[in-house]
């Protein structure tokens, strides 16, 4: 019993660290959230210049008002099927410790204020994303949103690991 209480306390503590405003978006059948503080802007899909010799999930680079920023296809990063772009497809520009990066998502939903009591720890299994990329599961009005640790998803290490090990090129 005591152990269970401890577990709950720890969980509660992490959840408190993660409460706040999230921008939610859709990938396939699932809804995700990124901390609003990391979001710089949301832009429509624009022409992406493919960068050769990079893994599939790195879509390429775009010109954001004179800045060259990379765009990552989150579907491919998370091992989902690539989707045909639609009217709703957009790029969320996030700021990862000073570096701007774009993430390609199916559609952006809304900005949600998620309190600590609504956040549950990530499931230990049953996720094709990998728990290290998840801050927690936001449960709001019966729907579950996966709150992403976006800095970890887009870390230099995570993105270049495949390049260096000579992953499959595009083409």
């Amino acid at each position, binding site marked *: 019993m005591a152990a269970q209480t401890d577990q709950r306390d720890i969980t509660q503590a992490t959840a408190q660290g993660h409460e706040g405003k999230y921008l939610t978006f859709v990938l396939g059948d699932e809804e995700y959230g990124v901390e609003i503080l990391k979001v710089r802007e949301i832009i429509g899909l624009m*022409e992406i*210049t*493919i*960068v*050769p*010799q*990079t893994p599939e999930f*790195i879509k390429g*680079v*775009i*010109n954001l008002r*004179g800045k*060259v*920023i*990379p765009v990552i296809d989150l579907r491919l990063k998370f091992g989902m099927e690539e989707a045909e772009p639609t009217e709703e497809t957009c790029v969320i520009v996030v700021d990862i410790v000073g*570096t701007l990066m774009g993430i390609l998502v199916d559609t952006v939903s809304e900005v949600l204020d998620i309190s600590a009591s609504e956040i549950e720890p990530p499931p230990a299994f049953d996720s094709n994303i990998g728990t290290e990329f998840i801050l927690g599961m936001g449960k709001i009005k019966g729907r579950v949103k996966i709150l992403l640790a976006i800095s970890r998803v887009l870390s*230099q290490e995570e*993105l*270049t690991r495949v*390049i*260096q090990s000579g992953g499959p*090129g*595009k*083409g």
Partner: protein
Amino acid sequence: MEEIDREILVEFIKETIEELDGLDAKFIELENNPSDSETINAIFRTMHSIKGSASFFNLNHIRNFSHKLENLLDELRKGARKVTKDIINILLEGKDYLDGMFDRLVNGDMGVELFENETSLLEKVDGILATEEEKEEVKPHHLFHELDKMRHDLDAEEVINKPSVAGMLEIIERLREVVLGPEAKGEKDAPPLGQLLVEEGVVTSDDVSNALSKQKRIGEILIEEGKATPDAIARAAQLQEKQNKEISEAKRAKPVPSSAVMGIKKSMRIEEEKIDNFMDAVGELIINAEVFNYLQKKLETGHEIEKLVAEFKNASVDFSELIFNLQKGLAEVRKVSLKGIFQKVPRMVRDLAEKIGKEVDVQVSGEELLVDKSLYEQLESPLNHIIRNAIDHGVELPDDRKASGKNPTGKIIVSAEEVSGDFVISIIDDGKGMDAETLKAKALEKGIITPQMAEVMSDKEAYKLIFAPGFSTAEKVTDVSGRGVGMDVVMTALKEIKGKIDINTEVGRGTELMISVPMSTTLITISGLVVAVGKEHYIVPMEWVRESIKPSREQITSVKHQGDIIQIREQIYPLFKLFEVFGIVPASKEPWESVVMVIEKEDQQCCLVVDEIIEETQVVLKDLGDIFSGIPGILGGAILGDGKIGLVINIEGILNSMKNRFNTINQEG
């Protein structure tokens, strides 16, 4: 008020750090040329002004420290003492401690106590000063004599503010110290004789005060001895009182800022003229913007289109020109001279050579060259590593040099120059040189290269093995040349600034190492050819493209395991297909239905197949960011006229990756 003081203090710290940086080279110069009065005077002046300012800011530790060094320098300057290696060593050490004290200030440590090692150096200086070497003792009447001579300056009221008063102040300062003993020593000094006598019970305190009241003041003694006139003494006394008052007021008015970290930011000096030019250019740009505004309004009416097009073209040409000038101006502003790095070289060489028992002369040239600030900052560490390596591994021990018929003193020449847009630093030593086979053997042993790699490796590539990670570190655990870091940091640093290294060496004769770096790393404009491959557009830097042709089928041959080769006139080149390198679907896979560009990069040549050449362009190279830094074939991105991003091709990277592929094929075959 305090804010202003702080600003002045920060300014003082910055200036002094700069001046201290220059001292090393001057000390070495003095050592090599002890009778050079200009050098010693320059050093003395620096020390003197540090002391003066430190005392102004109540930085007693710096004042006392520099004061002592100044005394020593003064004796050297007057020729009362000879410049010896020991003295230079002490001065250099003292300079390092001053560096340390200023470091402490920069870090917000406002403590004015000297550290133990600093105090013990001062004791060493005292030891030297105490040894008699026809040392002229400073007598009070001497100083009064000087004071007497200077008092004429003070006759008129308005003279008080003249610079000569500063000199006068200095004399007074010395006078006070000679007559009353150094102020700082006060606390540490033993109690006065009278106090001791009272404590010992020899006399009563009344006896002591009685005796003291009979003591004559120094002025009276001087008058009695006829060394000074009563008039002169009176004036001096007056002056003393006045100065005392001024000094104590100054001390009250200028409290040393509290122990907040000094807000010292990176800064650089810029000539005013350059800034003025900027302002002019910006002014013109504003006018230019007005022209565009005007043209836009005209365009809205839709009349006289032809005339408008012409006007628009003019405005646009003006605009490009202004932007170009601004860019050039900004690049100029960002430039600093290499002096800061180069002036530290002689000291470093001297210290290191002495430590490992070698004799090395160093010659430095090209320090006046201006380079971009970011480049400057990143050059220092690789340069130092290379020089250290040259002394450590290049130059032989004096006996060995003698044995092989060389001058026992080795020589290192460090020079910088600008060669066609590149900035080239060469480090030449006349040491033992390097042998490609020995290097390869060592690299093999350490598992850095494979036997196959060793076989195909050229001598030049073998020399570069000294920069490979793990090549030099192992045997250098206690060594001086790396501070535990290998030469591979050189390569890392150079990669950052897109620098390259070329090595020429001859066993027994020495080594020449050349670093070349593009002059500007901040804003690189590239003229290039926009080429199409499939749906993609790339930019091939023009400087490497010698020509482009539409080849015939007969010119191209496929060689098993080697890929394609192409014969153009008498010459045969390897043929690389860009669509293959980048994995794209091209318009045509057949080279004879495409365009072939002949690429020449230094001594390497190849041909590159693209779908077509679209146009010539000028672009600004942009870094793609860290996640793309590992891609060999791409140099960076550039924003094209239509707002799309064009990737700039890195010919060298492609050549290398293709070469590796061939090597692998060869090894497998």
